[in-house]
Protein backbone atom coordinates (compact mmCIF):
# COMPACT_ATOMS: atom_id res chain seq x y z
CA UNK A 1 0.00 0.00 0.00
CA UNK A 2 2.58 2.57 1.09
CA UNK A 3 0.04 5.34 1.63
CA UNK A 4 1.48 8.07 3.78
CA UNK A 5 0.25 9.41 7.06
CA UNK A 6 -2.93 11.37 6.66
CA UNK A 7 -3.18 10.57 2.98
CA UNK A 8 -6.56 11.17 1.45
CA UNK A 9 -7.89 7.77 0.57
CA UNK A 10 -7.84 7.03 -3.12
CA UNK A 11 -11.17 6.02 -4.58
CA UNK A 12 -12.35 3.80 -7.35
CA UNK A 13 -15.97 4.81 -7.79
CA UNK A 14 -17.44 4.59 -4.31
CA UNK A 15 -15.00 1.91 -3.26
CA UNK A 16 -12.43 3.01 -0.72
CA UNK A 17 -9.19 1.38 -1.82
CA UNK A 18 -7.34 2.12 1.42
CA UNK A 19 -6.47 -1.25 2.97
CA UNK A 20 -7.71 -3.00 -0.18
CA UNK A 21 -4.78 -5.42 -0.22
CA UNK A 22 -5.27 -6.29 3.44
CA UNK A 23 -9.00 -6.79 3.02
CA UNK A 24 -8.56 -9.04 -0.02
CA UNK A 25 -6.04 -11.10 1.92
CA UNK A 26 -8.42 -11.29 4.89
CA UNK A 27 -11.18 -12.59 2.62
CA UNK A 28 -8.94 -15.30 1.22
CA UNK A 29 -8.11 -16.38 4.76
CA UNK A 30 -11.46 -15.90 6.48
CA UNK A 31 -12.59 -19.54 6.26
CA UNK A 32 -9.24 -20.82 7.50
CA UNK A 33 -9.02 -18.29 10.32
CA UNK A 34 -12.58 -19.02 11.41
CA UNK A 35 -11.34 -22.46 12.38
CA UNK A 36 -8.20 -21.41 14.21
CA UNK A 37 -8.94 -17.82 15.35
CA UNK A 38 -12.73 -17.63 15.78
CA UNK A 39 -13.84 -14.25 17.19
CA UNK A 40 -10.26 -13.12 17.66
CA UNK A 41 -8.98 -9.82 16.28
CA UNK A 42 -6.36 -10.29 13.60
CA UNK A 43 -3.75 -7.77 12.56
CA UNK A 44 -2.88 -7.80 8.86
CA UNK A 45 -0.36 -5.69 6.96
CA UNK A 46 -0.25 -6.12 3.20
CA UNK A 47 -0.53 -9.86 2.64
CA UNK A 48 1.09 -10.68 5.95
CA UNK A 49 -0.65 -12.02 9.03
CA UNK A 50 0.85 -10.28 12.05
CA UNK A 51 -1.07 -11.54 15.08
CA UNK A 52 -4.40 -12.72 16.47
CA UNK A 53 -5.50 -11.13 19.74
CA UNK A 54 -8.29 -11.74 22.22
CA UNK A 55 -9.41 -8.10 22.30
CA UNK A 56 -9.56 -5.22 19.88
CA UNK A 57 -7.47 -3.08 22.23
CA UNK A 58 -4.67 -5.67 22.25
CA UNK A 59 -4.74 -5.85 18.45
CA UNK A 60 -4.63 -2.07 18.15
CA UNK A 61 -1.58 -1.96 20.42
CA UNK A 62 0.12 -4.65 18.31
CA UNK A 63 -0.63 -2.80 15.08
CA UNK A 64 0.61 0.55 16.34
CA UNK A 65 3.67 -0.94 18.04
CA UNK A 66 4.70 -2.73 14.84
CA UNK A 67 3.77 -0.16 12.22
CA UNK A 68 3.26 3.16 13.99
CA UNK A 69 0.82 5.42 12.21
CA UNK A 70 0.46 3.37 9.02
CA UNK A 71 -2.69 1.82 7.59
CA UNK A 72 -3.07 -1.66 9.06
CA UNK A 73 -6.14 -3.90 9.10
CA UNK A 74 -7.54 -4.86 12.50
CA UNK A 75 -10.66 -6.98 12.08
CA UNK A 76 -12.53 -9.57 14.09
CA UNK A 77 -12.70 -13.03 12.54
CA UNK A 78 -16.42 -13.65 12.09
CA UNK A 79 -18.42 -15.45 9.40
CA UNK A 80 -19.56 -12.18 7.83
CA UNK A 81 -18.68 -8.51 7.93
CA UNK A 82 -19.98 -6.07 10.48
CA UNK A 83 -23.31 -4.51 9.51
CA UNK A 84 -23.24 -0.78 10.10
CA UNK A 85 -26.50 1.11 10.46
CA UNK A 86 -26.40 4.90 10.60
CA UNK A 87 -29.94 5.96 9.65
CA UNK A 88 -29.16 9.68 9.93
CA UNK A 89 -26.64 9.25 7.12
CA UNK A 90 -28.58 6.65 5.18
CA UNK A 91 -31.64 8.83 4.91
CA UNK A 92 -29.92 12.21 4.93
CA UNK A 93 -31.59 13.30 8.16
CA UNK A 94 -28.80 15.52 9.47
CA UNK A 95 -29.12 19.25 9.14
CA UNK A 96 -27.26 22.30 10.29
CA UNK A 97 -27.69 23.27 13.94
CA UNK A 98 -30.05 26.03 14.99
CA UNK A 99 -28.59 29.51 15.62
CA UNK A 100 -25.59 29.54 17.93
CA UNK A 101 -26.16 29.37 21.65
Amino acid sequence: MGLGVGAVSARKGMRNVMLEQEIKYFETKRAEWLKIYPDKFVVVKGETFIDACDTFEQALRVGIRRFGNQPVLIRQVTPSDEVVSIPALTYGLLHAPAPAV
Partner: protein
Amino acid sequence: MPLHLQYKGLAQRPDGSTTELPAPFVLRTRGPAVEIAVAVSSELEQSLSDANQPVRAAITGLALIDTGAVATCVDETVAQQLGVAPIDVVRISSASHAQADKSVYPVRLRLLGTTIEVAASRAIGVPLQPQGFIALLGRDFLERFVLIYNGPAGEMTLGL
Protein backbone atom coordinates in the same frame (compact mmCIF):
# COMPACT_ATOMS: atom_id res chain seq x y z
CA MET B 1 -19.38 14.40 37.21
CA PRO B 2 -22.12 14.32 34.57
CA LEU B 3 -22.46 16.74 31.72
CA HIS B 4 -25.70 18.67 32.09
CA LEU B 5 -26.83 21.06 29.37
CA GLN B 6 -29.78 23.33 28.98
CA TYR B 7 -29.97 24.37 25.36
CA LYS B 8 -30.17 28.04 24.52
CA GLY B 9 -30.47 29.96 21.31
CA LEU B 10 -31.19 33.43 20.03
CA ALA B 11 -33.36 34.52 17.13
CA GLN B 12 -33.37 37.86 15.40
CA ARG B 13 -36.61 39.84 15.18
CA PRO B 14 -37.49 41.81 12.02
CA ASP B 15 -36.43 45.02 13.79
CA GLY B 16 -32.95 43.58 14.35
CA SER B 17 -33.29 42.95 18.06
CA THR B 18 -32.75 39.47 19.42
CA THR B 19 -34.97 37.23 21.46
CA GLU B 20 -34.18 34.09 23.40
CA LEU B 21 -35.64 30.90 21.99
CA PRO B 22 -37.39 28.42 24.30
CA ALA B 23 -35.02 25.67 25.43
CA PRO B 24 -37.34 22.81 24.31
CA PHE B 25 -37.45 24.34 20.82
CA VAL B 26 -33.66 24.64 20.65
CA LEU B 27 -33.17 21.05 21.80
CA ARG B 28 -35.72 19.77 19.30
CA THR B 29 -34.32 21.69 16.35
CA ARG B 30 -30.62 21.41 17.11
CA GLY B 31 -30.71 17.94 18.58
CA PRO B 32 -28.73 16.77 21.62
CA ALA B 33 -25.41 18.25 20.57
CA VAL B 34 -22.34 18.50 22.79
CA GLU B 35 -18.99 20.19 22.39
CA ILE B 36 -16.17 17.69 22.05
CA ALA B 37 -12.50 17.43 21.20
CA VAL B 38 -11.36 14.68 18.82
CA ALA B 39 -7.76 13.52 19.29
CA VAL B 40 -5.59 10.65 18.14
CA SER B 41 -5.94 7.47 20.20
CA SER B 42 -3.87 7.24 23.36
CA GLU B 43 -2.00 4.25 21.89
CA LEU B 44 -1.01 6.25 18.83
CA GLU B 45 -0.15 9.33 20.88
CA GLN B 46 2.21 7.22 23.00
CA SER B 47 3.78 5.67 19.90
CA LEU B 48 4.33 9.07 18.27
CA SER B 49 5.78 10.52 21.47
CA ASP B 50 8.14 7.55 21.84
CA ALA B 51 9.33 8.12 18.28
CA ASN B 52 9.77 11.87 18.92
CA GLN B 53 7.18 12.61 16.27
CA PRO B 54 4.69 15.45 16.65
CA VAL B 55 1.20 14.71 17.85
CA ARG B 56 -1.36 16.86 16.12
CA ALA B 57 -3.60 18.94 18.35
CA ALA B 58 -7.13 17.83 19.11
CA ILE B 59 -9.89 19.31 16.97
CA THR B 60 -12.92 20.77 18.69
CA GLY B 61 -16.48 21.14 17.48
CA LEU B 62 -20.03 19.94 17.90
CA ALA B 63 -21.01 16.27 18.12
CA LEU B 64 -24.56 15.03 17.84
CA ILE B 65 -25.74 12.24 20.12
CA ASP B 66 -27.39 9.74 17.80
CA THR B 67 -29.17 6.83 19.47
CA GLY B 68 -30.02 5.50 16.01
CA ALA B 69 -26.39 4.97 15.04
CA VAL B 70 -24.82 1.64 15.86
CA ALA B 71 -21.33 3.15 15.72
CA THR B 72 -19.64 6.46 16.36
CA CYS B 73 -18.67 8.47 13.30
CA VAL B 74 -16.11 11.20 12.93
CA ASP B 75 -15.90 13.73 10.13
CA GLU B 76 -13.45 12.33 7.61
CA THR B 77 -11.63 15.63 7.15
CA VAL B 78 -11.08 15.76 10.92
CA ALA B 79 -9.52 12.29 10.82
CA GLN B 80 -7.28 13.40 7.98
CA GLN B 81 -6.30 16.61 9.78
CA LEU B 82 -5.32 14.51 12.79
CA GLY B 83 -3.19 12.38 10.47
CA VAL B 84 -4.64 9.12 11.76
CA ALA B 85 -4.13 6.08 9.53
CA PRO B 86 -7.18 3.82 9.05
CA ILE B 87 -7.45 0.40 10.65
CA ASP B 88 -10.41 -1.01 8.75
CA VAL B 89 -13.06 -0.28 6.16
CA VAL B 90 -16.79 -0.77 6.72
CA ARG B 91 -19.69 -0.60 4.32
CA ILE B 92 -22.58 1.72 5.08
CA SER B 93 -25.58 2.87 3.10
CA SER B 94 -25.99 6.50 2.20
CA ALA B 95 -28.80 8.65 0.89
CA SER B 96 -27.06 9.39 -2.40
CA HIS B 97 -25.47 6.00 -3.07
CA ALA B 98 -26.61 2.46 -2.44
CA GLN B 99 -23.52 1.64 -0.39
CA ALA B 100 -20.17 3.20 0.31
CA ASP B 101 -17.00 1.93 1.90
CA LYS B 102 -15.73 4.14 4.70
CA SER B 103 -12.48 4.07 6.61
CA VAL B 104 -12.37 3.33 10.33
CA TYR B 105 -10.06 5.37 12.58
CA PRO B 106 -8.85 4.95 16.16
CA VAL B 107 -9.52 8.25 17.90
CA ARG B 108 -10.30 9.60 21.35
CA LEU B 109 -13.15 11.87 22.37
CA ARG B 110 -13.26 14.35 25.22
CA LEU B 111 -16.45 16.05 26.34
CA LEU B 112 -15.52 19.70 26.74
CA GLY B 113 -16.27 21.16 30.13
CA THR B 114 -15.80 17.80 31.80
CA THR B 115 -13.01 15.34 32.52
CA ILE B 116 -14.82 12.65 30.54
CA GLU B 117 -12.59 11.13 27.88
CA VAL B 118 -13.35 7.91 26.05
CA ALA B 119 -11.73 5.87 23.33
CA ALA B 120 -13.58 5.70 20.03
CA SER B 121 -11.25 3.15 18.56
CA ARG B 122 -13.47 2.27 15.62
CA ALA B 123 -14.86 5.62 14.54
CA ILE B 124 -16.17 5.65 10.98
CA GLY B 125 -15.01 8.49 8.77
CA VAL B 126 -17.97 10.17 7.04
CA PRO B 127 -18.68 13.70 5.79
CA LEU B 128 -20.31 15.59 8.67
CA GLN B 129 -18.93 19.13 8.63
CA PRO B 130 -21.41 20.33 5.97
CA GLN B 131 -24.07 19.59 8.60
CA GLY B 132 -22.19 21.49 11.27
CA PHE B 133 -20.85 18.52 13.23
CA ILE B 134 -17.49 16.84 13.65
CA ALA B 135 -18.84 13.61 15.13
CA LEU B 136 -21.92 11.48 15.64
CA LEU B 137 -21.90 9.76 19.01
CA GLY B 138 -23.45 6.34 18.43
CA ARG B 139 -24.51 3.49 20.66
CA ASP B 140 -20.95 2.18 21.06
CA PHE B 141 -20.24 5.51 22.78
CA LEU B 142 -23.53 5.64 24.69
CA GLU B 143 -23.16 2.13 26.11
CA ARG B 144 -20.85 3.67 28.72
CA PHE B 145 -23.25 6.43 29.78
CA VAL B 146 -26.62 7.21 31.26
CA LEU B 147 -28.40 9.58 28.90
CA ILE B 148 -31.34 11.66 30.08
CA TYR B 149 -33.19 13.57 27.36
CA ASN B 150 -35.55 16.02 29.01
CA GLY B 151 -37.59 17.40 26.15
CA PRO B 152 -40.05 19.55 28.15
CA ALA B 153 -37.17 21.30 29.92
CA GLY B 154 -34.89 21.46 26.87
CA GLU B 155 -32.17 19.72 28.85
CA MET B 156 -29.84 16.79 28.36
CA THR B 157 -27.69 14.99 30.91
CA LEU B 158 -24.91 12.57 30.11
CA GLY B 159 -23.32 10.77 33.02
CA LEU B 160 -20.93 7.88 33.55
